[in-house]
């Protein structure tokens, strides 16, 4: 080894010597991180902690924020409702089939209460499954003519838990712009790519699907594992019109996407027997992968359900968050839902036909003729949403003084993706149940309806039309019209 040292050429030794010196220098030099070229001292840290002031937990709310003061209802919320001490005809709750104060439903709920108590004290997996739940699930599946159904204890959570159970990060969902808030929350929880298409516009949807197909051809490996879904509502709660289901099914088979249908408003209402928009259009129910609905509108109970083929629905029993991690539906509410289903099956004629008429200049009716809940929207809007809402509130108050209960449609302004314009809800179909029990009312139900129409007409005349025809509303003139109204 020493001999090799002597025999090596000079430049070789010098090079190696320099390299060794360089290595020693690198080993002993101070290292520094590229990003944090500073280190704070303890005192600086304490100072920063002292100085930091958080925002208040909630921003302050002014006393007369419109959504702060709720209207208090004393007494049962049925056809006649007592709001703020005044008895009004109820045009505002989603009681489409009038089952909210049905005696049979109440008796069944009472019987269930006497057997099971009120709460279930556990989730479905841990002794929270009652025989009523199983019976309700099998009855719903039989009614909708699907293989299986699954029940949730809260209507909002139904579609919001169903979507993230199937669609994960990297999947693609095509949604209508007018989708309701619970669908939006489900989409947010699923972390998938969301693509919006214009409301009920099949060409727009087809354009998006074609674009996606081109992308898939560029990257076939990724396309083989990316699931694609279309989420639509049967009867849209925001625009009160129906989705074109036959065209959607054609698009489904052409582009190989699955359809999730949300039928909260149309269950019990559309179709010959009340089975929803699939029966209305005559579409085979097996073509729809998942139908989700809540039982809080037509069925007049609490909770929601999903139904479809077993292959699809079973998955939610272990991965639907609102199902696995939450207590089950109280058995008396399930028993009430079963009885409501019985009534619906016995008497399929109890569905809605509605009032569709042109009111006066100033208000526009939004929705299809057979929809149970319609929107009344201002024809001509002022510049700001706030003054529109104030005007509608005045109309609602005026109608309530005349014993007709209407309600402003409520939205969370900052959270909605496509905020619908200000409007209020007029549940015209409610009168169908009056036809069944018109002996209860002294006057003819058509009279009551006409009274409602007259009141709204009067309100509109006084408040809307009395204001001069300018594009910008003057708040002062608005107040003036209120004062003249009160003098009457």
């Amino acid at each position, binding site marked *: 080894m020493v001999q090799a040292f002597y025999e090596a050429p000079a430049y070789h030794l010098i090079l190696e010597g320099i390299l060794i010196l360089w290595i020693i220098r690198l080993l002993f030099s101070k290292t520094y991180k590229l990003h944090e070229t500073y280190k704070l001292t303890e005192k600086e840290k304490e100072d920063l902690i002292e100085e930091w002031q958080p925002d208040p937990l909630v921003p302050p709310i002014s006393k007369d924020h419109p959504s702060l003061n709720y209207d208090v209802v004393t007494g049962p919320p049925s056809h006649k409702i007592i709001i703020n001490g005044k008895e009004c005809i109820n045009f505002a709750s989603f009681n489409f089939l009038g089952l909210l104060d*049905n005696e049979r439903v109440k008796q069944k709920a009472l019987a269930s209460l006497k057997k099971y108590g009120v709460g279930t*004290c556990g989730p479905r997996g841990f002794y929270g499954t*009652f*025989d009523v739940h199983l019976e309700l699930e099998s009855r719903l599946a039989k009614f909708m003519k699907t293989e299986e159904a699954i029940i949730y204890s809260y209507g909002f959570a139904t579609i919001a838990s169903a979507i993230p159970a199937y669609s994960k990060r990297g999947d693609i969902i095509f949604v209508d712009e007018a989708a309701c808030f619970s669908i939006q929350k489900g989409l947010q929880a699923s972390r998938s790519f969301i693509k919006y298409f214009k409301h009920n516009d099949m060409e727009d949807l087809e354009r998006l699907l074609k674009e996606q197909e081109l992308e898939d051809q560029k990257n076939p490996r990724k396309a083989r594992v990316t699931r694609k879904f279309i989420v639509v509502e049967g009867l849209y709660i925001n625009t009160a019109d129906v989705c074109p289901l036959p065209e959607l099914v054609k698009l489904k088979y052409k582009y190989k996407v699955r359809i999730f249908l949300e039928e909260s408003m149309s269950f019990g209402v559309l179709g010959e027997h009340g089975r929803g928009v699939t029966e209305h259009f005559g579409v085979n129910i097996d073509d729809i992968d998942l139908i989700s609905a809540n039982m809080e509108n037509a069925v007049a109970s609490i909770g929601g359900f999903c139904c479809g083929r077993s292959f699809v629905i079973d998955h939610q029993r272990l991965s639907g968050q609102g199902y696995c991690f939450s207590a089950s539906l109280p058995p008396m509410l399930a028993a009430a839902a079963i009885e409501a289903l019985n009534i619906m099956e016995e008497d399929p004629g109890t569905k809605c036909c509605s009032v569709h008429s042109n009111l006066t200049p100033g208000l526009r009716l939004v929705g299809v003729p057979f929809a149970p809940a319609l929107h009344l929207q201002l024809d001509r809007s002022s510049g700001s949403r706030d003054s529109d809402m104030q005007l509608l509130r005045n109309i609602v108050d005026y109608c309530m003084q005349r014993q007709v209960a209407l309600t402003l449609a409520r939205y969370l302004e900052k959270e909605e993706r496509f905020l619908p314009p200000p409007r209020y809800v007029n549940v015209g179909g409610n009168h169908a149940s009056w036809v069944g029990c018109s002996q209860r009312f002294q006057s003819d139900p058509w009279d009551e309806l006409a009274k409602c129409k007259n009141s709204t007409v009067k309100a509109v005349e006084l408040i809307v039309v009395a204001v001069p025809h300018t594009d910008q509303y003057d708040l002062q003139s608005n107040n003036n019209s209120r004062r003249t109204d009160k003098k009457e």
Partner: protein
Amino acid sequence: QQKVFTDMCLRGQHHGGLYKRPFVESFEETPMLVAVLTYMGYGILTIFGYLRDFLRQWKIERCHIAREKEEQRDFVPLYQDFENFYTRNLYMRIRDNWNRPICSVPGAKMDLMERASFHWSFLVCYYSAIISFLHDVINLGSYNYLGFAENTGPCAESAAEVTVKYGVGVASSRQEIGNLDRHEEMEKLVAKFLGVESAMAFGMGFATNSMNIPALTGKGCLILSDELNHASLVLGARLSGSIIRVFKHNNMQSLEKLLREAIVHGQPRTHRPWKKILIVVEGIYSMEGSIVRLPEVIALKKHYRAYLYLDEAHSIGALGPRGRGVVDYFGLDPCDVDVMMGTFTKSFGAAGGYIAGKRELIEYLRSHSHSAVYATSMSPPVVEQIITSMKCIMGEDGTTIGCERVRRLAENTVYFRKRLREMGFIIYGNKDSPVVPMMLYMPAKIGAFGREMLKRNIGVVVVGFPATPIIESRARFCISASHSRELLDKVLGAICEVGDVLQLKYSRHRIQPSLVRPFDDSVYEDIDD
């Protein structure tokens, strides 16, 4: 250097003032042999799982599970095969321990329905497959802490009256026309019960968390959440869009370190100061049985000016000398907790959740919560059950039933845990928590324990992966005030027997059974960690 504050606590300088009673919690370590055997067990099951999958794929074994429709075979598959591996091969073998249907009140004793053969349509038993009933099975699985799950008595009668008067449904949201006078009365009562300014109630406990945390925090805020928080808290935190950082379970040093780092360094890349910091903890953690170290959390929160969100789903009604929850248990001031959340499902025998706190917070939630705007309000008989049971616990109905039940629950808890420990089982959690997890570890014992206990007419809950870490599967008992001492003795005898048969007595700290002594407040015990 970071643990300035908590070090002072541990060294006892602040300690005497923070904890008014001894805080005894223990999580005994897994014995090495047991851990090795458990991993081996899972390994063998995985190998068999692959074998069965292979056989099913080559059609040597018949496949019973539901399949996709013929016309949709060429669609992208809805489920990845690997996602369901655990479910198909491990869960399906022992699935008779879950989803057991009952057909009576879920009280101290219940009636179970037994399933004849399993319909292979996965996880639910169909109504038609039920053949027999098991009567008077002792119920250790339902969350019935104060025994309000009953179908007779003042609660059930007033709920019946309200059903006849108001009906069952409401069909409108709170902001529109669904706000009944009963709702307002209930909310005032909840506020009075907790000792805060005002409260607001929602129809589902899960939805209370997932819809209100997004209303409180948003982009630019930080959420510090415990490792073992419930799925609803995790979902709410995710939906809010804030940055989430996780601290080790019930570990105050970890929390302090995160707080200091967060305030000093600010938001991740821009280093702007955070708008708000929200600490999210639970009162009792239902899988561990541990109670949150609330005095220390509140001291930290005050020092660093963060906000505290306390989820008392299991602890409301079940802890504390007056049943007011974990704040009452530690003797603290409810105004220190910024957002108190809880559910009515467990101790009140109803359904739903609430949020309580200062008046400004509740007013903000009334106008900005997703639930108030879009979701239907609570059903009237459920509201009535809450009102009656809460009045009973507070003693406002003129009887002492409420106090009796709270006291009995505390006694039952202490007795049950002491006896189990003496027998030699490994029990996790705080000695005062009515949730008692008993470790099983091995996968085969999960199924065996559930079935053996059912043979002895006792219904228990067993939990495995993914609700718990993979080797720490456990059986979880929920003590109730409606369990009498004789019932508990019978259960303990059965558990001892099954424990001997299945060799579940893993504990190496066998304690000699002490003479029965009343609980002595003045004796200071060492803190176990």
